[in-house]
């Protein structure tokens, strides 16, 4: 796959934007997670209102050959409702924290969605036939002519006894004319997409669930909250196994929390979890039933020269993702993205600065709480590029081979069909060049926390508050 930008290969261009245009954004409409399925054919978003919207990739249209397929709404459903925990007097928000697709197993699609407490398994399936033909009523539900029913009765009065008896009388029975019964037949109808909840995995988390991850064995998944990680069987809802518990006996001794967790893409026994201290632990489930002891511990020694009041806050890891190959993992902290080789624990193999210019602004970012924003990150299909979000509706991409990086903006202004995205620059020095934006004029309310990259193609989905932007490469 080609590089992320700049070169001769391709440029990113606008494809679609979803969501309302109003400046007035309803809280419930804010997108809280974005996820492509394994084939990239479906794209799911979850929002703060507990809804899940699934978009489907339409086949290329013949009359507009220059446009590759678009993503259109396939199914929308309410995944979670607001709840109240009466025992603890706590409100449970409906906000969808994470969505994870299951590998496809038959014609239907399955996904896991979770809010702070409850994980649900949803089935999204199609139906294009419906049954027709009733005995006792018309298609529109009115009872049929009573005489018909009476005639039924007369005609069938004889064999009633056989029914109660046994199948040995079956032969007699078949001689009776039962043709008055109508067996329903299935007739084609307009395609209907149904989302139905298949399993509800509840009551296993005391703290807020921050991650769910489906295991490569296709039968288990893990869910992580601030202090614990549980392992579930996809078919069993009434119990889960606690595999990590970092809750200290005395909560006053609490110094770190789990921020994210993920299963290895191929090795079903391996998972990682990141912590608020900027470290990542890799655990091997083969070693012991409880994974309180890690097998690998990834930590970069702190540079004493850059130590400040905010060091600990900004080193907290907000997301961890394995590469598709399973060889690397990527972590996002407040200012940077790091790529780690699973075979090297003492430092990352690559470090990319996302918005280094904010280092001087940490004080005000602390005051407006932005410093606690949880940015996510993602790999492209071939692991050669990575993407993560920033402020001012900017998002960043890094090409791992060429080490080139680019800042792009998700905005309504450039949302004309096939419009090429212009690289953005934030001025860091004293003098601001043309086309550059000064750090002070960045809008910190417009943040891009959630992005997703198509597993095979150069198609990306970027959630900017209540809008979902889809960009794709433009082949020159």
């Amino acid at each position, binding site marked *: 796959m080609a590089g992320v930008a700049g070169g001769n290969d391709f440029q990113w261009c606008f494809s679609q934007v979803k969501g309302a245009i109003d400046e007035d954004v309803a809280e419930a409409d804010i997108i809280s997670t974005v996820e492509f399925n394994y084939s990239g054919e479906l794209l799911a978003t979850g929002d703060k209102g507990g809804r899940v919207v699934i978009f489907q990739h339409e086949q290329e249209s013949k009359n507009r050959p220059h446009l590759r397929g678009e993503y259109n709404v396939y199914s929308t459903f309410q995944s979670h409702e607001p709840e109240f925990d009466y025992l603890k007097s706590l409100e449970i928000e409906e906000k969808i924290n994470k969505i994870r697709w299951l*590998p496809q197993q038959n014609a239907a699609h399955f996904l896991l969605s979770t809010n702070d407490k409850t994980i649900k398994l949803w089935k999204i399936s199609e139906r294009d*036939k419906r049954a027709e033909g009733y005995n006792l009523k018309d298609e529109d539900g009115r009872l049929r002519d009573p005489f018909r029913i*009476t005639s039924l009765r007369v005609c069938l009065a004889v064999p*009633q006894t056989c*029914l109660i008896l046994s199948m040995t009388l079956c032969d007699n029975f078949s001689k009776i004319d039962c043709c008055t019964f109508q067996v*329903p037949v*299935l007739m084609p109808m307009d395609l209907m997409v149904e989302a139905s909840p298949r399993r509800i995995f509840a009551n296993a988390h005391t703290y807020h669930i921050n991650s769910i991850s489906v295991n490569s064995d*296709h039968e288990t998944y893990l869910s992580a909250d601030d202090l614990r990680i549980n392992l579930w069987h996809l078919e069993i809802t009434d119990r889960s196994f606690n595999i990590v518990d970092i809750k200290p006996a005395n909560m006053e001794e609490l110094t770190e929390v789990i921020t994210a967790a993920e299963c290895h893409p191929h090795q079903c026994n391996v998972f990682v979890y990141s912590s608020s201290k900027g470290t990542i632990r890799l655990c091997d489930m083969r070693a012991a039933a409880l994974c309180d002891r890690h097998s690998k511990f990834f930590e970069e020694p702190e540079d004493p020269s850059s130590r400040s009041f905010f060091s600990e806050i900004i080193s907290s890891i907000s997301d961890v993702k394995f590469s598709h190959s399973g060889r690397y993992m990527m972590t996002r902290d407040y200012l940077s993205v790091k790529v780690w080789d699973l075979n090297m624990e003492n430092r990352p193999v690559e470090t990319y600065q996302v918005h280094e210019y904010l280092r001087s602004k940490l004080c005000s970012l602390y005051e407006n709480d932005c410093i606690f924003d949880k940015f996510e990150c993602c790999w492209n299909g071939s692991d050669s590029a990575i993407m993560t979000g920033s402020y001012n509706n900017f998002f960043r991409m890094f090409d791992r081979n060429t080490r080139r990086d680019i800042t792009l903006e998700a905005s309504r202004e450039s949302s004309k069909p096939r419009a090429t995205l212009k690289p953005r620059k934030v001025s860091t020095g004293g003098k601001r060049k043309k086309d550059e934006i000064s750090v002070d004029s960045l809008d910190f309310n417009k943040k891009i926390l959630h992005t997703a990259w198509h597993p095979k193609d150069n198609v990306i989905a970027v959630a900017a508050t209540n809008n979902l932007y889809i960009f794709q490469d433009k082949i020159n």
Partner: protein
Amino acid sequence: LREGEVSKMAGADGDDSLYPIAVLIDELRNEDVQLRLNSIKKLSTIALALGVERTRTELLPFLTDTIYDEDEVLLALAEQLGNFTMLVGGPEYVHCLLPPLESLATVEETVVRDKAVESLRKISQEHSPVDLEVHFEPLVKRLASGDWFTSRTSACGLFSVCYPRVSSTVKAEIRQHFRTLCSDDTPMVRRAAASKLGEFAKVLELEYVKSDIISLFTALASDEQDSVRLLAVEACVSIATLLPQEDLETLVMPTLRQAAEDKSWRVRYMVADKFSELQKAVGPEITKNDLVPAFQNLLKDCEAEVRAAAANKVKEFCENLPEDNREQIIMTHILPCVKELVSDTNQHVKSALASVIMGLSTILGKDNTIEHLLPLFLAQLKDECPEVRLNIISNLDCVNEVIGIRQLSQSLLPAIVELAEDAKWRVRLAIIEYMPLLAGQLGVEFFDEKLNTLCMAWLIDHVYAIREAATCNLMKLVEKFGAEWAQNTIVPKVLGMANDPNYLHRMTTLFCINALSKACGQEITTKQMLPVVLKMSNDQVANVRFNVAKSLQKIGPILDSNALQTEVKPVLEKLASDTDMDVKYFAQEAISVLALA
């Protein structure tokens, strides 16, 4: 309209109208799942009404296309179709059932798929050899090469039923399909294949077991996913049973040794869990040379789950050792490990061991038990974990047979007392349940001296479940020690509680009387218990009074008619006009049950 209503009513009355069947058919597609489910469960009725022809041409095609329904409906359908052969016209037409079952075998819900496979296996037996090759085997092939893993997993369960009944060319194809599925891309399919490997091996000719199955077994047992490897352990049992002894060493043992030392604790757990089966399958020689050291390692495993699974098998493993040097193997190899487990850090391991360790005494005999096992029992009786102590106490009968319980009684008593006073009521409940057993083994003297007070103390426990269990316990003790013992030791104490200031304790007296009267017999009941019950009918608490009515109803049949008429009847009549409605109700009920009206 009126006629319609009439016929509907007739239908509802279930007279000779077939209206209900029309309803059943319509409800196959009702919006209410429960009604659809009802219809599907009566599918045989519908089919019978339609006749075989229309069942084949209309009902089955409709059902085949309904496969998007709720799981419970599909599950019921999958089950029904397994018994449908006669309803489609007998074995000649049984293949008509294949299309709907094929669809059901591909749904994502495991229970439905499994049921569909079960039904397919069932009806495969009703296919003629020709039909099996023409209709059934192609279905298996389609499933085995399906796009979705759901269909491929289902195929795994069908090979073994058609293999024995098809021609040798088709047999070769089936073996090839099974091979392919064993190396499928998705772990789900490999797991399904691994779990059916043993079953498939059983129907194969021995030469193919050696050539095909062994290589598949070896491959699955070294699969990259431990969830697949652990299933190969199960297959190991069946395969080892099929092979002649001389081939085991080269064909099976390398893989089994590898599994017992697998990196993943789940695989080792599986080996521990299946150890007795494995032991029987490989025979005494290999057991002596290979399994004994393997078992030692499992007992010392670093993962507590594995140690617990192995500890659970200690008794069975020792029992099945070859008799000629069983004692020597246990004493030199197993017992040292067992000793370590007694002080294991994990309480599940200790309690697993405690549940079987007593069984070793019958195998080792009196002297070894006293010298080697007794110290372990005593240590476990003092364990900090109540479950460990309970497990020892619950298995006392094994030791009793070998060395008599007296050896233990000095340590037993403190352990029992401590459990009897445990802060957790479930622990107290558990020990109460063992009291009759203990009493039987310790004898009446020991019991009166040491345990009787405990049994009475439970009667005034603050948890109802304990008081209830204590009551039941007294009844069992009386059954054991007889009415005379009851009259001397228990009855006075129980009746004394009738004057307790706490009404809950007064009610306990009544509950005890309910439980004991039968075991104590007519005389004690009439002379000692009845006066107390009758006196309590004046209790100021209504709950006590209506329990008096209930008690009288209960003990009535034991009393003679004179007592009933002269003593019970007036009291019940008085209670029947009580101010409290519950008292009235139960008094009246007692009067009618005892036929005193």
